[in-house]
């Protein structure tokens, strides 16, 4: 604001700037400056697309072990945009995503820096890490099918392609097509069968939906139990979480009503995705961030992932949770994840073209 010299002609509207207002202004200003002051160095700030309760056990274990202070900020959407607008001043050191495409976007927007760690290279197999070291996968999950125990005959649904076949008319439930999990699934179909066939498939699935895409993965299983549909698409770990949910025992009933099916066992395998981690370009605590990621790839953390989240650990030699193991081994569609990343934009747009959600 510019400061004007006094104009003697119009005494009406002109007054001296009240000192009280200036005092308030200064007070507010200094308050914000203090609020934005940097914290100490034993800190890792995490922007996470993974829900807080999934990360909590790992964070607690790490904090106990090292005495570091890990601050996790969770959001479903918008972390990338936030990181972009914050630029070099972003407080975030680490990004955690629940999907490979989410991570690929961070890389595409040039928001990451390489993770220099021999430990991580040793712990995580190469196909689950970015070739340029920009990110690493931490856990694997399958995009499974949940079929009604009573209304779906064995062998009736064994592939993703079956979801688009006429006999599934009005029997399929899924969450929004724009959700990253479904976009990645479509991207995997695009890379396997080509754009044209993938679109035909997507239209077929849409025509077979029992209801407009809505709710989360668990809600689809609930819908199967209640008879709203017969087959649901959902991530594998939800089966474990629902089966063991003592806090909400009704979810055990949902899980008990369905079989988990790992599709496409006779051809390319079940679509799998990884939860991934990366270090931001603007990280203020790079060394701490690397240490934190190394921990996440360690036997201990991978064990926690397996036991409390029912995911598939990526580090070799870490045991599956017995419940997960009881679902049986399955053939994963383990083409390089970067293929799926490459088809991501096409997949997002195809969801619009087909109008999957509407």
């Amino acid at each position: 604001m510019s400061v004007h010299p006094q104009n003697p002609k119009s005494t009406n509207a002109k007054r001296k700037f009240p000192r009280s207002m200036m005092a308030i202004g200064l007070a507010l200003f200094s308050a914000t400056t203090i609020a934005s002051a940097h914290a100490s160095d034993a800190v890792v700030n995490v922007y996470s697309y993974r829900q807080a309760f999934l990360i909590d056990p790992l964070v607690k274990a790490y904090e106990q072990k090292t005495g570091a202070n890990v601050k996790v900020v969770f959001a479903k959407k918008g972390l990338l945009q936030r990181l972009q607008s914050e630029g070099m001043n972003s407080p975030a050191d680490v990004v955690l995503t629940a999907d490979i495409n989410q991570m690929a976007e961070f890389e595409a927007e040039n928001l990451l820096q390489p993770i220099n760690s021999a430990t991580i290279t040793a712990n995580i197999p190469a196909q689950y890490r970015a070739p340029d070291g920009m990110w690493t996968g931490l856990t694997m999950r399958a995009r499974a099918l949940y079929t009604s125990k009573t209304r779906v005959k064995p062998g009736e649904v064994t592939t993703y392609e079956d979801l688009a076949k006429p006999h599934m008319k009005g029997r399929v439930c899924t969450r929004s097509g724009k959700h990253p999990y479904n976009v990645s699934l479509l991207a995997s179909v695009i890379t396997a069968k080509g754009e044209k066939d993938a679109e035909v498939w997507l239209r077929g699935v849409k025509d077979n939906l029992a209801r407009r895409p809505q709710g989360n993965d668990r809600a689809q299983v609930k819908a199967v139990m209640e008879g709203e549909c017969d087959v649901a698409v959902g991530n594998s770990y939800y089966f474990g979480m629902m089966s063991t949910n003592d806090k909400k025992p009704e979810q055990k009933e949902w899980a008990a009503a369905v079989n988990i099916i790992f599709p496409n066992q006779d051809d390319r395998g079940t679509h799998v995705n990884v939860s991934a981690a990366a270090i931001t370009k603007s990280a203020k605590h790079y060394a701490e961030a690397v240490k934190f990621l190394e921990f996440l790839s360690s036997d201990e953390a991978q064990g926690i992932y397996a036991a409390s989240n029912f995911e598939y650990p990526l580090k070799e030699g870490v045991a599956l949770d017995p419940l997960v193991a009881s679902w049986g081994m399955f053939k994963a569609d383990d083409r390089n994840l970067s293929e799926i990343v490459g088809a991501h934009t096409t997949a997002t747009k195809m969801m619009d073209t087909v109008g999957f959600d509407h």
Partner: protein
Amino acid sequence: MPHTVASPGPTSATRRFTLPTIDVWAVGTLAVAVAVAMPILWVLGLALTPSGDIWQHLVDTILGRLVWNTVLLMVGVGVGTFVIGTGTAWIVTMCRFPGRRIFEWALLIPMAVPAYVIAYVYTDLLEYSGPIQGLIRDVFGFETRHDYAFFEIRSLGGAITMMTLVLYPYVYLLARAAFLEQSVCVLEASRTLGKGPWTSFFKVALPLARPSIAVGVSLVMMETLNDFGTVDFFAVPTFTAGIFDVWLNMNSPSGAAQLASMLLMFVIVLVGLERYGRRKQKFHHTSTHVRALPGFQLSAPVATLAFIACALPVTLGFIVPAWVLGMYATDFYQDTLDADFWTFTGHSLMLSGFAALIAIVLGVFLAYSLRLGQTSWVRTLTRLAALGYAVPGAVLAIGILMYLGWLDNTIDGWSRETFGVSTGLIFSGTVIAVTFGYVVRFLSLSFGSAEAGLSKITANMDGAARTLGAGPMSTLKRVHLPMMQGSIMTAALLVFVDCMKELPMTVILRPFDFETLATFVHQYASDELLPEASLAALTIVGAGIIPVILLSLTIARARAGHTGQGQAAQTTEPALIDLEEVAP
């Protein structure tokens, strides 16, 4: 506004220093207007930057659907609120039936419920796994969805119904005030000339009240455009939903800004409609003869119908959702408390209170500055800046995030270069960003109230005060502020409650480890956890009821007074002012 210059100018004996004197009013008005207009300008600027092939993709795929759904939603909610609002207003104003006095204020209460909250509640009740359909299946022995037909609540029709149920009070309030204002003479003339009550309503009363109703409906439509929570939850592809999708899922800020600019065109049409409505208002006082409306005594069957017509919107819009939330809350309040309820409540109260305070200070400042007289272009700019409530939160959110991000990094870059010191992020990701958003959006409420309050104070007061030697600031402090205390308090309350309910901007602009009641309810409800968040939802509704009670009291007073001629004109006025400003 940190002024650091303290030059030792002409000093009096009692003052140790003085600041360089500036024209606080003109410069301040300009500064506020520019700051408030900035987010919108930023969006328009961003829309001009290339968005790759996103725009073509939108045109090819979803744009038509967005326009069509947005128009349908607006028309649907507009018609719905018009019918319910005007109908109930007419019934309670002109007819006599049991319960009328209760309905006069009770019809306002659904206004306290945010549209997204009612949407969550009815989805829980009416979806396939909800109690109603469950009961139907149990009673008739149905097994699956294919055995019977039931409407899908998560749909455009569902969204129209939800928004209509909580937005009709805007139309009701304005229509009722207009009906009360009408001279009974014109109605008597109509009846004398042989027209029945229905014809009199359609041919005389309704056309006379049209301007007020148009204002009410355009306010409702602005609210509809702003809605994010409901359309997001129901997956109805409207502009607001599309903006979020393009921005966050396709990561194209410029594509989102292009959509937002298109949305602004809708807003301009609405503002035009609203202005048009107000303009005509001046013409409809055809007679100064105002006395108590006679009231049609309804026969028992008709009275029953009237009772039902009034009871239904209140029941569906408030009683059912409040009851369901109450039931959930008694079972699950512990979960809400465990989820850090008090922290969220503290955040909501702090943000809303802070925003209300700033909005009031700035609103009074702007209104008083205009009263003191400013050049015409400053006036125009001020009026433009006060249009914030018409601009959907999603649009403002994009503008603010981008603008503040740029500002922060510019300041930081400059400071690094000049002093070698990083200032870090001063605005983005702090409560300042979200408070700024609230103030931009709700400044119109406080500005409008302050202007209305000031307009009732005769200019002779200013003259007298100034003749006695008081400057403008001291006149404002000692004369005007005490006289307009009432409207200021109301405005502060309205801004406060609107901030408590606000969702789209809060979601985007809040600091990241920072939940408010609204974002908490939104997050839980979209994860199928409404019961666990019910206490928080109830708290928002509870806060919303406070201004509704105040409005109800105004209405009660208006009713008591509308026998006296002069009084009638005066007592209906506050209600009218309030509503034009009630834009959550």
